[in-house]
């Protein structure tokens, strides 16, 4: 053991055995999907850059695959992180997790079938009525198959969250208690951060699933009986409510890895302070209230909802920056923690989240949105807090869980891979944002010649990102293999 080696912190309270095995398998599956979908994203950018030529229908199919694959994998990764750490505090059912994972994977197979065999290319947002009115490109059956696949994934998550809810209620008495209201409004002892965040996630995602299932059922029925039409504005509201809640919840779940792992490095426990509790209670309501910021250009929306969306958009960013980020700063600063791959990825993740919030808030101003909506600015901001934010945290968890308790230095090759991921990711995001500021639309299979140079640079950064991500996946698999041979 050389001097630069550090023992990856291990805590006796961390779940081991089957719980660890299940969580490791799930995070590896999710990370594999991340890497595969990144490769698809790279292909999309290279097509936009004019390096590669594919037919537009194939482009949009791959775009749909990239979107739905990433959102699904984000949900799975987040759920795996939350489930693993919740096992420290409450009794969760392993059978229910397997039921969740099984149903989820069946849904994934159905969706891949609907895209690659059925030719569905209606984007992951399945915005009514595009799935059933493709202009003759794919059949209604393909759309139905896609929607059924989504429904299965919804059922999977509902089962998972219900088990989490049950366990939280059993341990703490009620969700009001596990989110820390008695501590917030009184003098009761606050539950641990993971419990508080899990409660918020469980509540919003069960509600989100109900809304999502409703619009999916309507869309399926409409695909079978087209004379039953859905109000397009209602469909947009339900779809974006569900989508916004789901993807944000995936970040909230993944950040629990930061709450739980960073203290092992710093020796400073992540505390459920009053401000922490306030932050999560605000987030609980805000994440459900701000979705109208996706509908700023739908002039049929009631203006007060749009204004509420703008204010909510801003307010939602406050806890991320003023509470989560500053708390992390306080825990890290002069803590004597030794940097390694896992800690670096986790801190990078919080940076990505905080950084991504900024262009999100800017685009959440209606007057800016007027000329930024549906430009590359939008994928710019969400790749910031998903690629550099959420995925980094998921990778950090994956690397940590495979190595906990073992000696590991931050080796040169790891530093290089990490740097590749950071530089590639930041460059990719910068190209998205700059393209957006220059009015380049999102979701275009072919770009005007004057726009291609952005995509060409982005392609280069995407290659670097994918290489970095492959390295992370390799470290994750290597760690899992090592742990497997040890036990």
């Amino acid at each position, binding site marked *: 053991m050389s001097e630069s080696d550090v023992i990856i912190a291990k805590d006796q309270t961390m779940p081991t055995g089957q719980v660890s095995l299940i969580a490791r398998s799930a995070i590896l599956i999710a990370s594999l999907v991340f890497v595969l979908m990144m490769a698809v994203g790279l292909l999309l950018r290279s097509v936009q850059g004019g390096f590669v030529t594919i037919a*537009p229908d194939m482009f*949009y199919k791959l775009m749909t695959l990239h979107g739905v694959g990433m959102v699904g994998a984000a949900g799975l990764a987040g759920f795996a992180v939350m489930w693993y750490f919740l096992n420290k505090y409450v009794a969760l059912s392993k059978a229910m997790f397997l039921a969740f994972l099984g149903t989820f994977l069946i849904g994934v197979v159905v969706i891949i079938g609907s895209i690659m065999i059925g030719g569905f290319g209606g*984007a992951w947002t399945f*915005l009514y*009525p*595009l799935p059933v*009115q*493709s*202009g003759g*490109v794919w059949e209604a059956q393909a759309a139905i198959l896609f929607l059924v696949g989504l429904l299965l994934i919804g059922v999977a998550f509902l089962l998972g969250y219900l088990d989490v809810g049950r366990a939280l209620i059993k341990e703490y008495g009620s969700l009001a208690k596990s989110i820390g209201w008695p501590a917030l409004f009184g003098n009761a002892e606050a539950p641990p951060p993971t419990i508080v965040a899990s409660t918020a996630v469980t509540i919003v995602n069960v509600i989100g699933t109900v809304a999502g299932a409703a619009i999916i059922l309507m869309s399926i029925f409409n695909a079978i009986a087209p004379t039953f039409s859905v109000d*397009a*504005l209602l469909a947009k509201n339900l779809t974006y409510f569900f989508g916004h809640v789901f993807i944000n919840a995936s970040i909230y779940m993944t950040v629990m890895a930061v709450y739980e792992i960073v203290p092992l490095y710093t020796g400073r426990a992540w505390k459920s302070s009053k*401000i922490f509790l306030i932050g999560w209670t605000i987030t609980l309501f805000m994440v459900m209230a701000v979705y109208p910021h996706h509908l700023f250009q*739908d*002039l*049929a929306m009631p*203006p007060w909802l749009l*204004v509420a969306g*703008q*204010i909510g958009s*801003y307010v939602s960013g*406050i806890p991320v*920056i*003023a*509470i989560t*980020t*500053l708390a992390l*700063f*306080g825990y*890290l*600063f*002069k*803590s*004597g923690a030794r*940097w390694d791959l896992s800690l670096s990825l986790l801190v990078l993740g919080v940076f990505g989240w*905080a*950084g991504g919030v*900024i262009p999100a808030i*800017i*685009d959440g*101003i*209606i*007057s*800016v*949105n*007027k*000329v*930024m*909506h549906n*430009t590359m*600015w939008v994928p710019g901001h969400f790749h910031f807090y998903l690629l550099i934010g959420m995925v980094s945290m998921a990778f950090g968890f994956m690397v940590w869980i495979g190595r906990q308790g073992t000696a590991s230095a931050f080796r040169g090759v790891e530093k290089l891979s990490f740097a590749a991921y950071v530089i590639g990711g930041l460059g990719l995001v910068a190209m998205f*944002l*700059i393209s957006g*500021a220059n*009015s380049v*639309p999102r*979701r*275009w*299979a072919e770009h*005007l010649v004057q726009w291609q140079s952005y995509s060409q640079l982005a392609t280069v950064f995407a290659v670097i990102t994918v290489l970095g991500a492959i390295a992370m996946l390799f470290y994750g698999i290597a760690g899992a293999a090592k742990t497997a041979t040890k036990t």
Partner: protein
Amino acid sequence: MQQFALLTSLILIFGVIAGFLYVAINTSQAGDKAEIQQSINTLRTKTLWLMIGVGVPLTLALAYRWPHAPEGFQGEPITVSAESGQWYWNLSQFELPVGTPIVFELTTVDVNHGFGVYDEEFELVTQAQAMPGYTNKLNYVFKKPGLYTVACLEYCGVAHHAMLAEIDVVDPVTYANNQSNE
């Protein structure tokens, strides 16, 4: 607007980067836990008050003047119907006068489309959604003459990127002459 948004975002993002780098550089050293906690609490209080005290009034102020009502939108507007479908724009007129309030009545015969207006330099100047069953009224005043492009900004299927139309924006006198000649 776009460049201002980009610049603001970049400045703030660099602020966040600087914060992370400063903390990262100081992580490996040892320090007094209580003291650090104290200064972080102070910083957090200041940040919270700054974000609430300055940010919330600012966002309110930015919504106070209704963003969907453009400046200089006075007088009798010209109404232009813009029907969309997979994958075309059908405008009631493709020539419009500069400096005159225009109301685009956006409709669609099939799926959601996005009515995005690009100027000659291909900068996006305004947009709104066209959605099934609704007529969305987009108000706009063209500030300079030239050949504008209408492009679809809501994904609508395989030829989404090819759903383009052109609007010739001319001075009001030319516009009036051309109208009376028709």
